[in-house]
Every structure is written in structure tokens, then in C-alpha cells.
């Protein structure tokens, strides 16, 4: 076999990979679009108003793990306290913060030490003290020793929580007022539903007052704009598509609602991984399928949680490396499910997809890029052919991004200004010239070299420092 034959073989593999990955994106887009349209057609009949005022609605414990979140924690808790839901408790787990997170909370909400003693069903690092608020009866704060892991903080919160359902959110996120009412619906409708994921969107640039999104706008930062497109693509097409096939593998740690009994049954969050959110969901799939239990894990496109996306490259690098490492660990820990018919479509479809197209994707993406470069330099490809390949791949990427924007515009319509929509369409094109390649590079680097610390201490700008509505009358 000469060099040419080897080259041809690699070329076929790469082209087949690109064909399959793009085909899967198209299929997910169609399924996702279909399920979102169905959801919005049914939405007026969901009885959200009844749920929001009924005493029979299941109460929820909201767990907010916080590690050095002084910039966002107050806004976040204030927004949570305003949630339109009949009964809920907020448990902030202060995971060894070294900044003013706890002091701010104590002063703002008039916390007093309650030193509660509680049953430790899940093993966690020691809890130093617990506080309850003199001003609001449903706010609790746990101070615990940090083991440098968000999962441990969530487990401590789970031990402390008293309701059957719990919602895990990040301290740097803002949940929309009616989000819980919409999200709890599948759990009220069927006892088979054990977890529900909501959509996470980028809040950078939006007008926020007292923890509430007043106007959705696009930010100035280029990187944040790219991430708006990326989040829309991932949630509106990817997750809704997987959810429609009952094969959802990831419920974002930033916003997920779970049945506590189901999570306890599978042993809570694993502390030896940094992708604890995805790992928990995959483990639930694995254990429930082994036990032949009927269960469903759902994604609801409407309850929106807003998060602050990193605006500089350094933070973006760290965040994405952590995500990719988390994905690697999740797949490694549940590897026996891959191509195992015992686990149904999770083992035969979802996990192999995540392994080949998500985890190993950067190898093919960077590999393909290098292959074309080599082919061009050695004269295998002519310049026009290479150019056509590049144009085709860029335009296809744009098609998916604009498709996600189309769904946003069609069903959600959150961007009021024409300029914002125009800007996003522009960024949907531009992101293909460098940003997507950069992400592939970060993921490849994460896969090959990086060892990351567990809690991701991303310095936050804070929602308070974003555009503030001067007077919210």
C-alpha cells in the first residue's frame, strides 16, 4: 500500500464521518423542531395557571451550590424568591467560599444560625453550620467544607432538602419567573418521569433588574455572541431531539429538576467526576434499565434559565476543557453501556453518538482540516476543490445555526429588536471562521493533555454590572 492508498482511506473515513455527523445534526434538527412545535401548540392547554396556585402541586427544594459567587448570588437568590410556584425552599450550599458570598447572604437576608442536624443519607464532607433567614421562611444556607467538588455540595443539599422534587441550579444563573411551573408539568403528569431538563440561554448583554431579565439583548462581546448561537443550537435542536427519542443524556447542571427518590436510588451525585450532571443522567439510564424500570427523562424547551457566559478566551478555554473532560469521564464510567443492546437506544444510539461525534469529534474535525491542508500542499486536491469543501462545510454549519435561530424566532421570539436578530444571523455566519475551529481545538486539547481542577472558579462580571434598567416602573 502506497501513500496515496493510505491517504484515500483516511479521506474516505473523514468524509464518511462528516457525512454522518451532518446527517445526524439534520435528523436531530428535524426531530427537535417537530417536538418544539408540538410543545408550543399544546402549551396553552398545559394548565400552568392551575399548577401555580394549587396546593396539590408538589413542592420543590431548589439547590444552589455556591463557591465564590459573591458577584451573582444575591441577584440569583432574589430572583428565586420571586418564582411563581406554590411551595418551595431555597437551599444555598456555600461550598467553602473564600470571598464574601456568605457575608453578603447573611446581611441581605438576615440569616441566623440554626445549626440544624440532619440525616446524612449521602456521604459528604462535613457541614460546619446551617442558617435560616429571619426575613424569608423558605431560605436556608449550609456552610460546608469544600472538597473542591460541586457534586459534594449538591449531595449535601440533597441530604438537607425536605421535598420530593429538587431543582439543581448554578449560582450564576437566573431562572424565569414561571420556569418551575412549566418544568414540573411532566413530573406531575407521570410518575415515570424522573428528571426534566430546561433550556439554558446566555444572559450577557441583556437588561437585568433585581435578578429578573427585563429585556433580552445581545452583548457586545464577540465570544458571548458566538455562545448565544451555540447554546441555541445545542438546546433547541440537540436536546429537544434527543428528548423526543427518550434518549436525553445531559441535563444541564445549571438547570435541572429531579425526583429526589430516583436520584437517591442511584446513589446521588458522584464526586469523582467533574461532569456530575451528565454522569448522573447516564447512570440513571443505566441503573433503571438494568432494573427494567419504566422511566422517562425529559427536556422542556420553554422554562428558561439565563446564565452568564465567559467573555474572554481564557475562561472559555477553562469552561470547555472542563465540559469535555466531564463528557470523557461520563462515557468512561458508563462504558459498558456502549453498543450493549441490553441498554436499548441509550446503549446502541445515544452513547455511541456522544462517543464518536462529541467526544472524539475534535480529532476528526482537526484531522480533517489537517488532511485537506496536506492534500492541498501535496497536490492531491486542487485549490477549487478545497475551496468548495470549505464553503460547503461552513455553509452547512450556518444552516444549522440559522435553523436554531429560526426556531427561536418562530416559537420564543425573545429578541425584541431587529438589530439583535440581524446581529445573531451575522454571527451565525461568522462563527464558522475561527470560533468553531477554536472550540474543536480546545476540546482536542482537553482530550489529550489537560488535567483540570474540579470547581470551576470563573470570575463573574455579575448580573448587577450588566445593563440596568434605570427605573423599573
Amino acid at each position, binding site marked *: 500500500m502506497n501513500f496515496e492508498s493510505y491517504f484515500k482511506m483516511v479521506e474516505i473515513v473523514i468524509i464518511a464521518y462528516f457525512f454522518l455527523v451532518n446527517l445526524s445534526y439534520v435528523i436531530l434538527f428535524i426531530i427537535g423542531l417537530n417536538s418544539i412545535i408540538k410543545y408550543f401548540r399544546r402549551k*396553552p392547554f398545559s394548565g400552568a395557571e392551575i399548577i401555580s396556585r394549587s396546593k396539590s402541586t408538589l413542592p420543590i427544594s431548589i439547590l444552589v451550590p455556591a463557591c465564590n459567587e459573591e458577584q451573582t448570588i444575591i441577584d440569583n437568590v432574589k430572583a428565586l424568591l420571586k418564582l411563581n410556584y406554590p411551595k418551595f425552599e431555597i437551599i444555598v450550599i456555600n461550598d467553602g467560599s473564600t470571598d464574601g458570598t456568605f457575608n453578603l447572604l447573611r446581611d441581605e437576608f438576615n440569616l441566623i444560625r440554626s445549626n440544624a442536624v440532619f440525616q446524612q443519607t449521602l456521604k459528604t464532607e462535613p457541614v460546619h453550620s446551617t442558617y435560616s433567614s429571619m426575613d424569608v421562611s423558605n431560605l436556608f444556607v449550609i456552610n460546608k467544607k469544600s472538597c473542591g467538588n460541586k457534586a459534594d455540595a449538591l449531595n449535601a443539599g440533597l441530604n438537607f432538602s425536605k421535598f420530593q422534587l429538587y431543582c439543581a441550579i448554578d449560582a450564576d444563573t437566573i431562572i424565569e419567573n414561571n420556569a418551575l411551573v412549566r418544568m414540573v408539568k411532566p413530573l406531575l403528569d407521570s410518575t415515570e418521569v424522573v428528571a426534566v431538563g430546561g433550556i439554558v440561554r446566555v444572559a450577557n448583554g441583556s437588561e437585568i433588574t433585581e435578578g429578573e431579565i427585563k429585556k433580552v439583548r445581545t452583548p457586545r462581546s464577540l465570544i458571548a455572541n458566538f455562545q448565544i448561537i451555540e447554546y441555541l443550537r445545542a438546546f433547541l435542536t440537540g436536546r429537544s431531539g434527543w428528548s423526543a427519542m427518550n434518549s436525553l443524556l445531559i441535563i444541564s447542571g445549571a438547570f435541572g429538576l429531579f425526583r429526589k427518590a430516583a436520584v437517591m436510588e442511584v446513589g446521588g451525585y458522584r464526586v469523582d467526576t467533574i461532569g456530575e450532571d451528565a454522569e448522573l443522567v447516564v447512570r440513571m439510564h443505566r441503573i433503571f434499565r438494568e432494573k427494567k424500570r419504566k422511566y422517562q427523562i425529559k427536556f422542556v424547551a420553554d422554562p428558561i434559565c439565563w446564565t452568564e457566559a465567559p467573555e474572554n478566551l481564557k475562561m472559555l478555554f477553562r469552561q470547555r476543557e472542563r465540559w469535555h473532560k466531564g463528557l470523557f469521564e461520563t462515557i468512561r464510567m458508563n462504558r459498558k453501556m456502549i453498543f450493549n443492546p441490553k441498554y436499548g437506544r441509550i446503549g446502541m444510539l445515544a452513547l455511541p453518538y456522544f462517543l464518536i461525534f462529541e467526544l472524539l469529534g475534535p480529532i476528526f474535525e482537526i484531522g480533517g482540516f489537517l488532511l485537506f491542508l496536506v492534500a492541498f500542499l501535496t497536490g492531491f486536491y486542487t485549490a477549487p476543490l478545497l475551496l468548495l469543501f470549505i464553503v460547503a462545510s461552513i*455553509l452547512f454549519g450556518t444552516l444549522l445555526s440559522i435553523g436554531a*435561530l429560526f426556531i427561536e424566532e418562530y416559537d420564543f421570539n425573545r429578541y425584541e429588536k431587529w438589530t439583535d436578530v440581524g446581529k445573531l444571523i451575522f454571527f451565525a455566519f461568522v462563527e464558522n471562521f475561527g470560533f468553531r475551529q477554536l472550540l474543536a481545538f480546545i476540546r482536542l486539547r482537553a482530550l489529550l493533555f489537560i488535567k483540570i481542577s474540579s470547581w470551576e472558579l470563573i470570575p463573574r462580571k455579575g448580573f448587577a454590572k450588566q445593563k440596568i434598567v434605570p427605573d423599573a416602573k
Partner: protein
Amino acid sequence: MFLIKLSIAFIIFGDILLILGIVVKRMRREYSYRQYLNKVAKYKKMLKDTLNSKGKGILLLNKTEVIADRGPIKKALLECIEETSSERREKRILWLFREIGLAEFYFAGALSSNHITRARAIDTLGDFKIEETVDVIVKALRERSDIVAASSARALGNIGGDVAIKVLVGLLNDPHLAKQSMIISLIENVGNDAVPYLNKILINGSNSIKVQVVKLLGDIGDERAIPLLLYLLDSDNIDLRSKATESLGKLKAMSCLAHIQNLASDDAWPVRAMAAKALGYFGHPSSIKFLKELIRDEEWGVRKNSGRSLSELGIEGEYALIEMLKSVDKFAREMSAAELESNGAITKFSLLAFSDDRKEAENAQTILFDFDNVISKTSMATRFDSIGQKDRNKEKETTGPLFQKVG
């Protein structure tokens, strides 16, 4: 090469189509929303003129106009109903809904072959409380389409009236969980009018339905439920007994206080737990001796509820908890300490310990000493873990340290 060029052409076409879709959708939405608001304002003015002058106003619209603008007209009618506090005026608006032909239109919609149209029409008929449509709505309740069934249940809840309530209560037997949870909420909204029908279920229904109904009666809070709930206190079914106890507590049915106090010695711990909770709702000092007994119970849930109820009994309950700090029973001591801490009493005594009043300071110091004595030897739980409501023996099976003491 040709294939690639073809794909590029397709993709470009797709991109342009999607962008055009976004632009057109946006333009249409903005235009039709402006139109809609203008029309709502126009019809609202017309309606108000009709109502104020008793003239023909909106009645002069012809049927085609009404059907074409049904959305804005409906919105205008609903807004007028919302803004009015006069029952007569509201009745007149509902009458106008029929007179202009909208009732007829939505009635036809309720029979449409499209399930979304049916659901929308039924919702609207419910909003305008058209009682004559109850039969159609009841039929729709049995449909396979869950959104039509949910709309029907909601419409019945809005319409109210004897027939609707009777049907709703009857639906409690529906095994479909989603429908059942919605129906419970709707009956809860109907409130006191539903009580006679719910009482009937307490006589005839199956035990699982009875449990739901007993809870509902407690939440509705109508005294007419007391005799039957009292009767259920003698039921063989533990769930029923415990839920009836709780509901009677919520109803603060003083005539049943003695009966509930007697349940403190019931064989089943869930009943004892609910009796402890109910005694807290009553808030009667005569319950203290029973609660002091219950705080020694072998079941954690019973102890927990007793502690909480003693807290709710005010200063006398607090004294009882302080007294229990010296109890010979370890579990009573621990639960009392936990309750005193979580209700803020310990914080209060920590301040009083430095009071200028010597007697008061000494008293507080003694209490704090007793409290520290209990806490230093404790391994207790003060919060219910809804999953792990384990009895003492089972607690040993949990992972890690059994309980975590903090502070």
C-alpha cells in the same frame, strides 16, 4: 465536484429560506400584533358603549365580522369581565357573548375534528361559563387527546354549578395521573360547593380515592366535612385514618380534639405522627401532655411532628420542650433540643444569659447548660428526609455517618 456544488446550492437555498422565514415571521407578528391591539381597543370601546348606553353597539356587528375578529372580540369581552366588579354587568357581558354569535361558533368548534380547535373552543366556552355546553364538555373529557380532556376539566372548573362539580368529582376515579392531579386542583378551586359531592365519595368511593378526598376536604376547610372525617378516624385503613386526622387538624374541629388526643396511642405510627401534627394545628394547651408523650415515640416522624407542634403551642409548649431536655428518654431529649434550636429559642436564651436580671440570666444559663448536655451526646436528626424516614433499626443501614451534627 458536481455533487459538492449541488450540495452548496441546496445549503445556500436553505440558508436564504430560513433567513427569509425569520424576517417574514417577525414582520407578520409585529404587524398582526399591532392590528390585534387596535381591534381589542376598538371592540372594548364598543362593548363599553353598549353596556353603558344599553344601546345596540356591538350587537350591530354582522356574523361574518364577529367570526373574522373573534380573537380580539373575545379578548375585549374577557377584559371587560375582569375589569367589572358588578355581577349584573358580568352577566350582561356573558349574554353578549351568546348574542353576537360567538357562543354558537365556539360550540361548533367544540365538535371540530381537529383536537387543537376542540381544546381551544372548550377552553373559551369554559371562560364564558356557558352551562348548556356541559354535556359536550363531559363527552370531550373521555377523549383520547389529553389536551382536549384537560381543557374540558378546566372548563368544567370554570363553569362550576352542580352538574359540572358532580362530573368533576366523579372524575376523581380516573386512573390517569395527569388528569387526576388537575381535577384535584380544580375541585380545590371550586371550594365549598364541592363539599357535599366529596362527602358522598367518602361514603361510596374506594379507599385510594377516599384518601385524596380527605386531603382535599382538609384543604378546602369546610366544616360540613367534619362528621364524615370523624367517622373515618375509626377506619381500619391506616392511610385514611392518618389523613383524616390531619384534615381535622387543618379544620381545627375543636369537637374532635379529645378524639385526636386519644389517637396519640394509636397502634400505627403514621396515625400517631398525624395526630401530633394535628394537635399543633389546634394549638390547645390541653394537648401538651399528649405531645410530651409522643415526643418519646419510637418513630422519628412522630417525634419530629410532636416537637414542631409543641413549638407552635407558644410559651407553654416551649416550657414543655425545655422540661423534656431533662427527660430520661434519649430521643425525647434530642428532639426537644433540636426543636428549641431550630425555632430560635436557644438563640433567645443565649442573649438572655447575659441579661441584667440575675434570675432571668440564671434561668437561661441553666437551660443552655441542659441543652449543651444533650447536644454534646447527640446523634440526632431534626429534618425530615422524605426518602429516608427510617426507623431506628434501618438507620444503621445508611451509608456514612448516620447523622451529621453541625456547628
